[in-house]
């Protein structure tokens, strides 16, 4: 398998009146095609900053990111980004929300419109296409947000704590939901989360970042034994508790 994303010696410094903050230092890791990688770390370790750098929204102060072998210099259609909240626009219908990215990227063609409708149909939202976001439940809204990202056909999905705004039950369910869609659409994904259980349940590998300045502390390969792997079933696998303990120790949290 080839490396879809390669992160080389990434460092990030922020300037402020009170001085300089080193958010990230010498980050190295890669994501293979089709892989699901989670990044966990204590709050404020620069996880989201790292995603912004990979997406090209933010320019790092050191190092390079390669996407499909090409250096990242700005945002591109190769990347799909999912934010903490769904940020569906209340003044647009579900369908209009889904085609937002197509509109901006000037990709609105009969084929892409067809794809948008197909995705809505596949994931049970077709009948809501002319409804407005406030008529949908939190789980459905997050699914619409994922479709909005998928419809531009990105090579990699960057998920920036997309479940953290949901209540616990919805969250477990949406975990399964989003995971199933990502696997079904054969997408590579990089998930940022502070939830250890969530990271293990979804990922093939977990990258653990240290406290600020964030740097890669350890990378764990996640192998869980269950016949039909979904995030929810993964939580019942015998290895789960073990991995959880290991990463928890690695996180080294003190009150």
């Amino acid at each position, binding site marked *: 398998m080839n490396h879809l994303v390669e992160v080389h010696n990434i460092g990030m410094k922020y300037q402020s009146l009170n001085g300089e903050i080193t958010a990230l230092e010498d980050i190295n890791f890669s994501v293979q095609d089709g892989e699901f990688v989670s990044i966990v770390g204590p709050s404020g370790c620069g996880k989201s900053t790292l995603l912004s750098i990979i997406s090209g929204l933010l320019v790092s102060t050191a190092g390079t990111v390669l996407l499909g072998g090409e250096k990242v210099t700005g945002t591109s259609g190769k990347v799909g980004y999912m934010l903490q909240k769904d940020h569906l626009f209340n003044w647009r219908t579900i369908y209009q929300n889904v085609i937002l990215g197509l509109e901006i990227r000037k990709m609105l063609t009969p084929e892409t419109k067809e794809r948008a409708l197909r995705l809505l149909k596949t994931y049970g939202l077709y009948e809501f296409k002319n409804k407005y976001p406030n008529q949908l439940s939190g789980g*459905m809204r997050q699914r619409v947000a994922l479709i909005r990202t998928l419809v531009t056909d990105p090579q990699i999905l960057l998920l920036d704590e997309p479940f953290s705004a949901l209540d616990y039950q919805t969250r477990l369910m949406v975990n399964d939901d989003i995971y199933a869609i990502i696997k079904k659409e054969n997408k590579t994904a990089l998930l940022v989360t502070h939830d250890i259980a969530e990271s293990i349940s979804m990922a093939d590998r977990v990258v653990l970042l240290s406290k600020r300045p964030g740097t890669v502390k350890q990378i764990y390969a996640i192998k869980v034994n269950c016949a039909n792997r979904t995030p929810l079933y993964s939580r019942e696998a015998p290895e789960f508790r073990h991995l959880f303990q290991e990463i928890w120790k690695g996180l080294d949290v003190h009150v």
Partner: protein
Amino acid sequence: MSNLEPEISPPMTRTSAFSQEHKVYLRRLKMEKQWILFIQVVIFVVAIALWEICANAKIVDPFITSQPSRIIKTIIRLYEEGVLFQHIGITCLEAFVGFVSGTLLGTLIAIGLWWSKFLCKILEPYLVVFNSLPKIALGPVFIVWIGAGPAAIIVMTLAISLIVTVLEILNGFLAIDAEKIKLIQTFGGTKLHILTLVVLPASLPTIINALKINVGLSWVGVIVGEFLVSKAGLGYLIVYGGQVFKLDLVMTSVIILGVAATLMYQGVVFLEKLLVKNNL
């Protein structure tokens, strides 16, 4: 496999299958509404009647306070002289033009200040000064510069409403969730995309709010302007009536003004209902 079926609660059924308690609740709500309307009408009728009776009984001097029957007579007289709608029309036109141009120009300036943070920082002290300044003080200046006429009155209206509009709308623009802007950027969107796809539609409620404030301010501007320069309009009638001690004329104009300003405000409320259906 995970559940990919839509999970949505069934819509609330609004029809008859409700309990007795619900019917009682609905009836009580309706009763309250009717009571409120009834009392509102009673207050209006009693106030008018008291005014008329007190004036007739010479408890108050109708020469000073006027009275409802004299106001109606004044309206009829103005109508017969053929000047009623001319005065109303001129004032409404000035208020409307001032209102629309103040809102449009204010929105445009707010967009400019939002677009360039640098420009915004440069202009900030000037905005503060103009916002604090009682714009009425500029009245004589406008008359000298523009000439005594409707144009000076409209500029007066603009001066009063513009800065408030700019600040109100700019605050709305700046309060928009940064993550919504980030979403547009993740799709490679430009600043123009951010403006047209997020900032303007998300600010629609703020802009409508600015419109509501502007309705009031436009009338203030028009009346002040007419006090200073005009030869026609409701503000002119008020000043003229005051000078020649025709309080009937003053009261009549004030009441017509109240009705006209309320209608314009209701127009904005109607516009709001039309536009801000799904905004929040």
